[in-house]
């Protein structure tokens, strides 16, 4: 799986539209009075849509390739993941800011005391 800026921007747009559609037209059968598995499912879909959007923002923001996150723009000459530890050696925690608003990024720096950051080659 590869990602690139154009694709991710398009995905954010599409997910926003999908979420809008979901909240306008979701049809939940059953009532509030009993166990309702349809409502459970709807809640899960709502979570997935929110989560998918954050995923895209994060992938868009991380301008490097690292692990399973492979950005087409950031690769070595022989097609391997090209990391950018100088700018992206952090864990991203995204804070929800409301529907349709870009979430806020909090960086948790990765500090290595006993090992030196290195790139592994799978070749």
């Amino acid at each position, binding site marked *: 799986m590869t990602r690139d800026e154009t694709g991710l921007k398009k995905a954010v747009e599409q997910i926003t539209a999908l979420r809008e559609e979901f909240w306008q037209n979701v049809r939940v*059968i*059953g009532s509030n*009075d*009993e*166990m309702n*598995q*349809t409502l459970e499912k709807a809640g899960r879909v709502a979570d997935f849509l929110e989560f998918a959007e954050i995923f895209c923002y994060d992938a868009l923001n991380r301008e490097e390739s690292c692990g399973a996150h492979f950005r087409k723009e950031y690769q070595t000459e022989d097609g391997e993941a090209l990391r950018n530890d100088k700018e992206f050696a952090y864990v991203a925690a995204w804070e929800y800011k409301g529907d349709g608003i870009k979430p806020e990024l909090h960086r948790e720096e990765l500090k290595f005391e006993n090992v030196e950051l290195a790139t592994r080659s799978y070749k």
Partner: protein
Amino acid sequence: MNLTLRIWRQKNARDKGRLETYQANDINENMSLLEMLDVVNENLVRKGSEPIHFDHDCREGICGACSLVINGIPHGGKKGCTTCELRIRNFNDGDTITIEPYRARAFPVIKDLMVDRSALDRVMQAGGFVSVGTAGTPDANAISIEKDVAEIAMDSAACIGCGACVAACKNASAMLFVAAKVSHLANLPQGQVERKRRVLNMVNQADSEGFGNCTNQYECEVVCPKEISVKFIAQMNREYFKALKK
């Protein structure tokens, strides 16, 4: 395959409930029984009707969430299989399949085919903890356990807590479940400190939840998807008497 389903529908614990008939047409024979219910539910939802509620989770026979009494037998009667592992190819085209919830006083119906099995969780809680030495991570195999003892402990530890033993029993007894949990730890050195307390508490909790007693009919062993032997009930009874004697 085309099947006729007679399915128990019940709004909630207070509702009387009844069997309703549904047609399941063009069902792929390689589907599991739960996947067939998924198809039926998709059609119900499309028509604006409430889907049939049933419990499910891993769908690979290890979690113990799925239940159902299929044609009168918990998990459908295929040896060593949970409902999620039961394939439609085990039935014939044109068959009528009756699907009901587990029926036991200690398992009240939540809705349709879904029952509340938290009584089993409370039995587990009553079992409590094991006391083990802390400090550093022990070396693997530091406590040597003979192979045949380890095998017996593993055989009882295979219980996934689905409750089929209760549903199959005319006394709605949870003896096979409790026995599996008690024997698992009683057979291992790690379970020795609380050995007596554990069996007394778990058996007493099972009694107070309204599960019945064992009258040696062994339906439980037959329906158990993990094929747990009733010999563990004998061990639990021995454990119980030894614990009473102090």
